[in-house]
């Protein structure tokens, strides 16, 4: 715990590393992960640094690795195994060799891919051609017949849907009566000289069909005829097509007929523009058949080649896949090293690298061990020299040794701000206060147990879940599992105090009240002899609230009064703790000014106003208002503490007789108020004035040669401060360098106003504990009565089932999830604002310790 209160002591080291050992040293340091390097080349941009070329090499290798990974993932269907990477394997790998190897590998893979691509393209071409031929057969079978009429050749479409085209007679050169239109043309792709109609056949991708059709229509002014065949229509097509469609996307076979050569060249251009693949479609059936035969032969040959290539490729890729993660890790590590090396300064005269950085004092020995290890490994002649820089100018980073339990709470604290070096850390207090404040708002045995259960499951499965990547919500819960556990346990505890389990009061120890026929009011079990007098029980309920209160008419106001007072007590206590902690900070940093002119008046102000209120609460609780002596005395009445508090400020010396809690209350109150009032200017004025005085004095001192010894003394106290803690003395130094009284004064004014007003508003803010707790218990009561009890009273099994399900859903969803979230946020706020603003992170200059390390 001690190590958590203040951050680890850090020392600033300067390492002089021989050039040949630099790399090894960085490897060892990163492995150890306790050294934070400072940037000694801040003025240089990334590419001007010494190892920019190496970083670039790593970048390039990472790019190659990404490329290979992509290829491997694409090629191999089986999941790659995440193999474990050993340090030995990493060390035996040489970066330069790896770089060369990766370069070759990339070349090979690219070559392999292009070869593969060519093969596949060939396969596609052959397959498409074959399919086209089969589809072509269909074209010609369905071809319209031509009849010659006076007006020209009419193509009679066999299918009435197809529009018929009129071709002027002059263009028709044949004289046969009727003939197959397509039969006339002696075509191929080139031979259109003798025909009326030329045609092209090919494949077009599905999404291009419409634009293609449109532009054909425009260019030919409606004279080109496009016929599309969806491949489903070609029943004779063999199965290869299925495969093709998967690989190359949906395509259609088309054939376009057109008159004239000029239009033909245009259409050819259009086809090119749409990157359509055109194929030769002979018109004669025999030719088609022969071509198809040869294509099929070719296709089969190709298949064998493809299969063998495929297996070769898979082999190659599997080999790559085996080592890929090792390579990736290696390159990542090397990149870390080079980035670290880029932070070093090179001393040309001595051929050494100079590294500057922070290390926790505890780890100093380990660090030296690792340096000598590195030196041994690299066979260096001279050892690495470590120099401890005694009085560093910059503030050390903040570093805590955390475990899986404390880290959650530290994170909660640091979300507000990173603590300054060696500043008092609120985290150890938070470990207890946070779940407790949460539990005050969430007090319910049942809900608390559910929450504990969830946390327990998460903790139980810690090892299983730890390494995995979880969904964001689960991850948040998992990270905060120990906090949730504590919150749940504390909620069970407060639940016992409130005596609530899912909204039901438990009668664990037998209620000490009973109702009699004699009176509408209850009386204590053991003092019910005279039922009419309604005496309270002599022996009270041992722990928590008597269950009778949950049914009593004044139960709610009783609970409210209790919870309100509890909130004030908890709040004022926590704020006083905050103020006391500010004393420990001030005394640690040897700042007498802050003790006497900030801490003392703050403490006095707080305890004289709200501390007094807490005192009153306790006195009121401890007084037996039912004692016979009190009952007989008309002045002995429980006073309204709100009025007493208001009276403290309005008329402190005058307390009404029946509102007095103790003798001389008026006089004591007057004194308290006086102290509180005095402490306001006490907080405000002395600190800035003393600072001003010191500043003036130091100026005079510097101006006067004879008073040199005094200056030395001052310097020595300053350096003393340095050793103790950099932050504060740094602040002082800065102030001394440029002291602006106005600014300091305004700063102090703001602080004072904030504290004085804050004392009121923060105390009021703690009342949220009561409000949330009230809301929680009322909600659970409402769900219980309106949903569960009402449906049970219907006495219908289905209704009860539905009612129970609804109630369970509401309990889990609204009470356990939403309410817990809101209680969590309120507890968070109370810690960040009300508690921490009393002492924590007032300078806001903390920075975290980020050691150079291989771990992500």
């Amino acid at each position, binding site marked *: 715990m001690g190590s958590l209160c203040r951050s680890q002591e850090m020392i600033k080291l300067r390492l002089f590393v021989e050039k040949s050992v630099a790399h090894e040293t960085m490897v060892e340091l990163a492995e150890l992960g306790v050294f934070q390097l400072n940037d000694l080349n801040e003025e240089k*941009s990334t590419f001007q640094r010494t190892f*920019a070329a190496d970083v670039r090499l790593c970048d390039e290798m990472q790019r190659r690795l990404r490329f290979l990974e992509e290829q491997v993932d694409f090629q191999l269907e089986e999941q790659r195994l995440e193999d474990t990477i050993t340090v030995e394997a990493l060390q035996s790998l040489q970066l330069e060799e790896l770089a060369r190897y990766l370069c070759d590998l990339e070349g090979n893979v690219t070559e392999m891919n292009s070869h593969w691509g060519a093969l596949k393209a060939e396969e596609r071409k052959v397959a498409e051609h074959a399919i086209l031929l089969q589809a072509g057969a269909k074209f010609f079978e369905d071809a319209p017949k031509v009849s010659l009429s006076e007006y020209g050749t009419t193509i009679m479409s066999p299918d009435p849907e197809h529009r018929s085209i009129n071709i002027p007679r002059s263009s028709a050169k044949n004289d046969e009566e009727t003939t197959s239109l397509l039969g006339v043309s002696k075509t191929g792709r080139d031979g259109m000289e003798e025909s009326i109609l030329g045609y092209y056949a090919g494949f077009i991708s599905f999404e291009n069909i419409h634009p293609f059709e449109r*532009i054909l229509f425009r*260019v030919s002014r409606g004279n080109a005829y496009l016929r599309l065949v969806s491949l489903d229509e070609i029943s004779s097509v063999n199965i290869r097509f299925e495969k093709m469609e998967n690989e190359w996307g949906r395509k259609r076979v088309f054939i376009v007929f057109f008159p004239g050569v000029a239009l033909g060249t245009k259409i050819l251009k259009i086809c090119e*523009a749409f990157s359509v693949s055109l194929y030769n479609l002979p018109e004669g059936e025999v030719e088609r058949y022969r071509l198809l035969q040869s294509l099929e032969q070719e296709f089969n040959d190709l298949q064998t080649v493809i299969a063998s290539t495929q297996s070769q490729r898979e082999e190659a890729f599997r080999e790559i896949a085996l080592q890929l993660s090792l390579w990736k890790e290696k390159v990542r590590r090397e990149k870390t090293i080079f980035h670290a090396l880029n932070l070093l300064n090179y001393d040309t005269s001595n051929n050494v690298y100079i590294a500057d950085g922070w290390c926790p004092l505890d780890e100093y020995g380990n660090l030296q061990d690792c340096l000598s290890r590195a030196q041994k490994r690299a066979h260096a002649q001279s050892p690495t020299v470590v120099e401890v820089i005694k009085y560093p100018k910059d503030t050390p980073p903040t570093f805590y040794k955390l475990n899986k339990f404390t880290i959650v709470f530290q994170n909660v604290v640091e979300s507000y701000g990173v603590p300054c070096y060696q500043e008092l850390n609120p985290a150890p207090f938070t470990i207890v206060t946070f779940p407790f404040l949460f539990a005050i708002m969430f007090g319910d045995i049942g809900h608390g147990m559910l929450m504990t259960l969830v946390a327990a499951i998460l903790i139980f499965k810690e090892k299983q879940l730890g390494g995995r990547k979880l969904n964001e919500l689960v991850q948040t819960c998992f990270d905060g599992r120990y906090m949730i556990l504590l919150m749940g346990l504390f909620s069970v505890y407060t639940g016992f105090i409130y005596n609530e389990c899912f909204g039901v009061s438990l009668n664990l120890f037998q209620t000490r009240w009973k109702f009699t026929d004699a009176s509408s009011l209850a009386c204590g079990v053991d003092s019910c002899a005279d039922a009419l007098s309604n005496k309270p029980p002599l022996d009270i309920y041992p722990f928590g609230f008597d269950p009778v209160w949950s049914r009593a008419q004044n139960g709610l106001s009783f609970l409210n009064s209790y919870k309100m007072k509890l909130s004030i007590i908890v709040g004022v206590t926590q704020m006083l703790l905050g103020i006391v902690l500010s004393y420990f900070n001030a005394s640690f940093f040897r700042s007498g000014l802050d003790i006497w002119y900030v801490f003392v008046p703050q403490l006095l102000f707080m305890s004289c106003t709200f501390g007094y209120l807490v005192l009153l609460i306790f006195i009121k609780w401890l007084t037996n208002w039912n004692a016979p002596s009190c009952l007989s005395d008309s002045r002995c009445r429980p006073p309204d503490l709100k009025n007493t508090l208001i009276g403290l400020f309005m008329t402190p010396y005058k307390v009404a007789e029946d509102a007095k809690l103790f003798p001389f209350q008026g006089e004591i109150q007057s004194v308290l108020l006086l102290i509180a009032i005095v402490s306001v200017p006490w907080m405000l004025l002395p600190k800035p004035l003393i600072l001003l005085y010191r500043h003036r004095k130091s100026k005079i001192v510097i101006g006067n040669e004879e008073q040199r010894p005094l200056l030395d003394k001052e310097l020595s106290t300053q350096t003393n401060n340095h050793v103790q803690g950099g932050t504060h003395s740094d602040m002082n130094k800065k102030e001394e360098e440029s002291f602006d009284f106005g600014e300091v004064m305004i700063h102090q004014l703001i602080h004072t106003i904030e504290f004085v007003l804050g004392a009121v508003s923060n105390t009021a803010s703690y009342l949220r504990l009561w409000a949330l707790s009230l809301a929680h218990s009322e909600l659970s009561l409402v769900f219980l009565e309106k949903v569960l009890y009402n449906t049970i009273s219907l006495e219908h099994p289905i209704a009860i089932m539905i009612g129970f399900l609804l109630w369970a859903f509401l309990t889990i969803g609204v009470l356990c999830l939403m309410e817990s979230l809101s209680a969590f946020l309120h507890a968070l706020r109370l810690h960040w604002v009300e508690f921490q603003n009393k002492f924590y992170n007032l300078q806001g200059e903390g920075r975290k310790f980020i050691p150079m390390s291989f771990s992500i």
Partner: protein
Amino acid sequence: MEDIRDLIGFNVDDGYIEALVRGYKSSLLSSVDYVNLTQCETLEDVRMHLNGTEYSVVLQDEPSPLTASIIAEKCSVKLVSDFQYIRSQSTNPLTKFLDYLTYPYMIDNLVLLVTGTLHERDIGELLEKCNTLGSFPAMSTLSIVSTPEELYREILVDTPLAPYFAECVSFDDLTETNIEIIRNILYKAYLEDFYQFCCSLGGTTEKIMCEILQFEADRRIINITLNSLGSKLSREARENLYPSIGSLVPEGTLKLSRAEDVQSVNSVLESYDLFRRLLQYSTDSPGKSLEDSFIEYEVQLSKKTFEQQFHYGVFYGFLKLREQEIRNILWICECISQRHRTGIGNYVTIF
């Protein structure tokens, strides 16, 4: 009144996209970045530096060796994907506004392709040079046309440029001069149309966009005048190319259409405050032409769009600024690869 309408209603449809664009804007390179870039020794250094910026996504997987054009190309890929993302998220009238922004690229692409075909260049090669933002259907089939009439009937009729082309259909054939005239006519029609559209949007958009478009029109008028000095273009023909909007209309355009040499153009411009300043600026700073000062003023205008909220000008501003940034990167990269150290500082700092 319209401002209030913007205030209340703008975010309903366009708030998210405006936020996106403001986010994109904050990723523009700063002057520090530019200073670092100019210090680079090789293009690999440039990549290393750009890896720390928004461009890392598009550049990091690019195999070495790099060339200046590859870098610029990859940077525009980023611009295009950003723009298309915005476009796909938008609703009308913003979608229409964004479409309008792409028309100039369409015009440029069209002219590039037609000129290329005229010189019998390979269409695939030309298509690569085209700006993706201005792609239109049937772009690839442009090589089949040989007359303006065919161009209109077969290609443009489907594109949003069709209405702008009406005047050009009457040209006989596609010669280089004609193409240049077609470009100017298209641009003129586009500017006028866009101006009308922005006016119809009203509110802050109208105020900001109209100022920008007027400047754009003025700039075109001046450039047309300067380029046509000493050419065979007649006075009427020249005047015909002038957009009918802008601060130079009508008096300035009338005078400009009569201008015979650079001096007379300058004397016309002297009477306009803005152009006097720009002229002054270009003469004062060595190595800067009037066009450079126009560009810098355009950057100023584009930056200014971000100073107000709830209007569409930011989309225009962002596009222009990103474009300028890519031009800057290209310039710096070219200077580095050609070892032309002296001119490397001639980029336009944006932020």
